[in-house]
């Protein structure tokens, strides 16, 4: 479908059409340069290309159709919000736009200038009326994972219907109790929004749906670890990004199809990069769509990314929810346990993340780790120092980079990345 066919829908969503056209054309060019220029991509990536080309089109149309059928749309920013609950009451959950520099001047009227690019982005998208997902939402769920987000949501609540989940900052028994209370409070909110009850039956189905998606992504992560790497890191990042807004069942099926193709490619010994290309793992802050800057720099410097230790990566897919529960109460507990395993830098202490980073680097046989922090992201910048020490002690080369969504530091980043890769040879 062409953009013309969607104009009426965008107009109804009150988007700033001229600015939105500009965004789409920049995004299209960016995608062409970074994705379509790759050699030897898998056929299964066509689905992802299609989804991305229709990211503000067909998928938004699907959301409008769902709304017309009485389903509710829930927007989120964080892997702590249990999608299982939204699916149980037949709502659609989508991750909201936060990966591009948009509406920054407007955002800076609500949040301080030294706020990370991700926060400024979601506020900018809203204030500049550029994100059809945000505009489609019946409820937007925030969470207290950092001070920047916490305070930003207060300001954001004046512009959008918000529900805030209090994510604990420790992993003590009392923190677990707080988290359970928050999960139940969120469940009530969803029941009130949709007029539907969460039952053992619908929640069991939702747990299975979300687990299936995690299993497909786990399978992808196991396959991509082959030598030579059968798929680019950019493509895997894109798949992870799309997992936040595509229909979960359809998405899982297409990832599994892609994995079948990967298995064939591995059998044939084909790779997207030469077998001796340096294998790099990314670790740290999430890269929300369309934040592809650093992966593109790394891979166009001759390395291949074989893992993303990030919320848009393994932090979101590593742990499954126990599917053996029978009662609703047991299922809620299983959900709480699963989400409390997330090794987000917002926790203190967060020692398990150090173990996870190191063991992931070893499992993936990486030549080096590039730590990525968004500028002004205190939690990950702090942990970056600890991770660096741990990796150095384990003789795993690493480098830390801090950047944002602007393009002005691309040349400096290239020099650093290339120099790091030179040290790995």
């Amino acid at each position, binding site marked *: 479908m062409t953009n013309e066919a969607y104009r009426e829908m965008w107009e109804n969503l009150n988007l700033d059409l001229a600015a939105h056209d500009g965004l789409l054309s920049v995004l299209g060019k960016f995608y062409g340069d970074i994705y379509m220029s790759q050699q030897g991509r898998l056929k299964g990536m066509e689905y992802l290309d299609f989804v991305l080309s229709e990211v503000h089109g067909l998928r938004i149309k699907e959301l409008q159709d769902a709304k017309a059928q009485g389903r509710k749309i829930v927007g989120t920013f964080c892997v702590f919000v249990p999608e299982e609950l939204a699916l149980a009451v037949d709502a659609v959950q989508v991750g909201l736009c936060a990966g591009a520099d948009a509406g920054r001047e407007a955002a800076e009227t609500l949040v301080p200038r030294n706020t990370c690019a991700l926060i400024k982005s979601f506020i900018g998208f809203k204030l500049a009326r550029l994100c059809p997902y945000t505009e489609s939402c019946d409820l937007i769920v925030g969470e207290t994972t950092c001070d920047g987000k916490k305070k930003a949501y207060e300001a954001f609540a004046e512009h959008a219907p918000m529900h805030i989940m209090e994510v604990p900052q420790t992993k003590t028994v009392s923190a677990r109790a707080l988290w359970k209370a928050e999960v139940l409070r969120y469940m009530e909110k969803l029941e009130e929004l949709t007029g539907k009850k969460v039952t053992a039956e619908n929640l069991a189905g939702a747990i299975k749906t979300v687990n299936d998606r995690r299993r497909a992504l786990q399978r992808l992560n196991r396959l991509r670890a082959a030598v030579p790497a059968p798929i680019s890191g950019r493509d895997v990042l894109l798949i992870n990004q799309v997992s936040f807004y595509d229909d979960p069942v359809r998405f899982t099926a297409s990832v599994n199809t892609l994995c079948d193709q990967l298995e064939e490619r591995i059998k044939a010994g084909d790779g997207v990069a030469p077998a001796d290309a340096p294998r790099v793992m990314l670790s740290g802050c999430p890269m929300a769509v369309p934040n592809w800057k650093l992966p593109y720099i790394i891979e166009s410097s001759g390395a291949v990314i074989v893992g993303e230790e990030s919320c848009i990566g393994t932090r979101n897919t590593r742990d499954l929810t126990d599917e053996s529960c029978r009662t609703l109460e047991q299922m809620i507990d299983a959900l709480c346990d699963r989400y409390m395993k997330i090794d987000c830098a917002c926790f203190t202490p967060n020692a398990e993340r150090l173990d996870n980073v190191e063991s992931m680097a070893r499992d993936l046989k990486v030549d080096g780790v590039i730590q990525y922090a968004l500028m002004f992201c205190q939690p990950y910048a702090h942990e970056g120092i600890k991770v660096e020490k741990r990796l150095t002690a384990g003789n795993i080369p690493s480098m830390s980079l*801090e950047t944002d969504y602007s393009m*002005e*530091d691309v*040349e*400096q980043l290239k*020099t*650093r990345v*290339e*120099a790091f890769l*030179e*040290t790995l040879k």
Partner: protein
Amino acid sequence: MILGIDIGSRSIEVVGMAGDEVVEKRRAPTTFNPVAQLRALLDGLSARRAVATGYGRKLVQDLDLGFPVETITEIKAHGLGAARHYPEARTLLDIGGQDTKAIALLPGGRVGKFEMNDRCAAGTGKFLEYTAQIFQIPVQEFGLYALFGDAPPIINSMCTVFAETEATSLMAQGVRPENIALGLHLSIVRRTVNMLQRVGLNLPLVFVGGVAHNPCMRRLLAEQTGTVEGETLLVPEEPDMTGALGAALWGEKLALESA
């Protein structure tokens, strides 16, 4: 002959090697037209191959120079160049036109951990060039001028624009300009020493890049790192040629490997 070409933000250096000997050294300002400047520099040179480094390294590769051009980063190039002068070097400091790099060196000039300044040119040659203008003296003489200071005020701003404001208000307070100049140099050196410490400041330390010509920077760096120039602080005769030299050495290595 094998060429090493270093296209930096402020200047272009070319080093030509035949076998193990440096047989050619040329330099020119980068200007707004680095391609024309480079072509003029290469005029009359016939080379078998070249290795390009610096910000313009990809630019050189895209030119049709009639011989193969490889690229390496300026970090690797400076490591190799410094090790040629001083094989015993353990740490390298390069302050160029818009970059400062602190590099831990491994045997053979290989790069260990490294640190680079961020996107902003604070604390680089550009900072000195800009602040020298406040005193209406050429940047080449700024270091010598600053050495006449004896009581440097603390200057906190690393941003060139803010540093100028700070320097101007110090002048208004009647602080001797030589002391302000010294304070400006000291502010860069302090920041630089922080970077050096982050990579582990093992000695001897080699100081290269155009800013290593500045006598005040050398003296303050020695003071702040507890080193002695000529012993634990080593500065080659032509510190700004180090990157091009390292690139040429890498070209020699590639030529040997492919022979």
